[in-house]
């Protein structure tokens, strides 16, 4: 597709810090290459703002190749914008029309408070992980090599699919209930499917779900929006697995 240049208008949420009230500001931005990524477009805007002596728009980004999960943004009513299976850094300006007004908002959820402009605090995910998103390993030197335990290919594939979750929070952002179940279920599944993870499976699901509830995420109503918006295509199958794991851990005790 040949490169074109479009003129757009940006409607961006500006908020000085977590305590200040925020509001939308509009910025016209001419001559945006359709080959540029969404974040490159924001870089262009910020260069213009800095040249004028204005405060640049704060937004999260890191690897810019779709693997770190750092970029966020709610663009025109969708997490990571209108494209499917991509993070915001992989979203390109060719998805937008000349003359279009693009609304950019931070991810909205009670557990994800705005830090500044479009940057939100996603550390609740870290606290959920700290409650069981790992395998406890005895590092005495006698640890068995992981490859020595046979794992069926189908299970390994499913575990790997779940493990591709980058923890970006798009599932929470897009869910009408601000539920974190797709994230938590992926993190429960990636270990529950493997023999190394089965040992602590019960504690893991109970503790991670409990922490998710403490953080104040909403409840899952199976709308499936998370699966559609997830840049890594994490399946709802994982939520069903988490529900099963939870049910098992609740009604069966040793």
């Amino acid at each position: 597709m040949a490169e074109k240049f479009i003129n757009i208008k940006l409607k961006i949420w500006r908020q000085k810090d977590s305590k200040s009230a925020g509001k939308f500001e509009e910025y016209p931005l001419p001559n945006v290459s359709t080959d540029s990524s969404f974040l490159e477009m924001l870089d262009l805007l910020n260069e213009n703002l800095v040249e004028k002596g204005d405060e640049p728009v704060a937004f999260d980004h890191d690897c810019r190749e779709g693997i770190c999960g750092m970029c966020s943004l709610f663009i025109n009513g969708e997490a990571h914008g209108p494209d499917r299976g991509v993070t915001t850094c992989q979203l390109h300006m060719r998805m937008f029309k000349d003359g279009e007004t693009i609304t950019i908002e931070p991810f909205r959820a009670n557990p994800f408070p705005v830090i500044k402009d479009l940057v939100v605090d996603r550390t609740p995910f870290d606290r959920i992980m700290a409650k069981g998103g790992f395998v406890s390993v005895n590092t005495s030197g006698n640890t068995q090599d992981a490859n020595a335990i046979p794992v069926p290919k189908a299970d390994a594939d499913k575990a790997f699919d779940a493990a591709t979750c980058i923890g970006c929070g798009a599932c929470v952002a897009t869910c009408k209930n601000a539920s974190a179940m797709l994230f938590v279920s992926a993190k429960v599944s990636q270990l529950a499917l493997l023999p190394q993870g089965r040992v602590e499976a019960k504690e893991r699901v109970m503790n991670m779900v409990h922490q998710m509830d403490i953080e104040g995420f909403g409840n899952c109503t199976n709308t499936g929006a998370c699966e559609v918006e997830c840049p890594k295509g994490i399946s709802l199958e994982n939520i069903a697995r988490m529900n099963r794991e939870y049910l098992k851990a609740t009604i069966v005790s040793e």
Partner: protein
Amino acid sequence: MSNHGMTKSSVGRKILMALSGFFLLFFLLQHFSINMLSVISEDAFNSVSYFMGYNPVVQFVLQPILIFGVVFHLAMGIKLDMENRKARPVKYEQYNGAANASWMSRNMIITGLTVLAFLGLHFYDFWAHEMNEKFIEGGANSFANGGNPTRFFHELQEKFVDVWRVIIYVVAFVLLALHLLHGFQSAFQSVGFRHSKYTPIIKKLGNVYAILIPLGFIFIALYHYIDQLN
């Protein structure tokens, strides 16, 4: 291990929501089957209604369980919805819900509350009437005495003379259909039942159930309305 109980955790409540939903799905099928008898045979409808209305097990064991199931499902539904609203106190300026989820799945509280409003009318029409007939106006012994075993068909038909009541029935069942179109398959997902082979079948079965049963109730209401036009 922090086991904070089924009724307190988000996943636990979702499972309970699904289980009460399953129960209500089963009840609806049973209710529909009996109502359908009113179209087929007046006598059969009267005798089954009499059994349901005067059998002590149905009245004093099954009926309280049903009422608990209904109250639980709706109270929990309202509570969960309120929590969900609290989980996003600052709303999006622009939210394109239709881009990634069906209208039915996003509006369960609206369709559910409409069905609840209809249940108010339905309880007034039939349940309150039955209670009055059996325990209050009919006298202290009327339940034990068994009452009139042939009154039910006539009482049913009386309700469908007024065209407005028929319209309310139709609207309520359309909304129930929308509720079930999401609810049926959603309940299976909530209890963790998901299978590459069976889930597509459950989804199709759910669509069939969600459309056929409400359509059947609408047919019964219209049948009795039209039956009494001349």
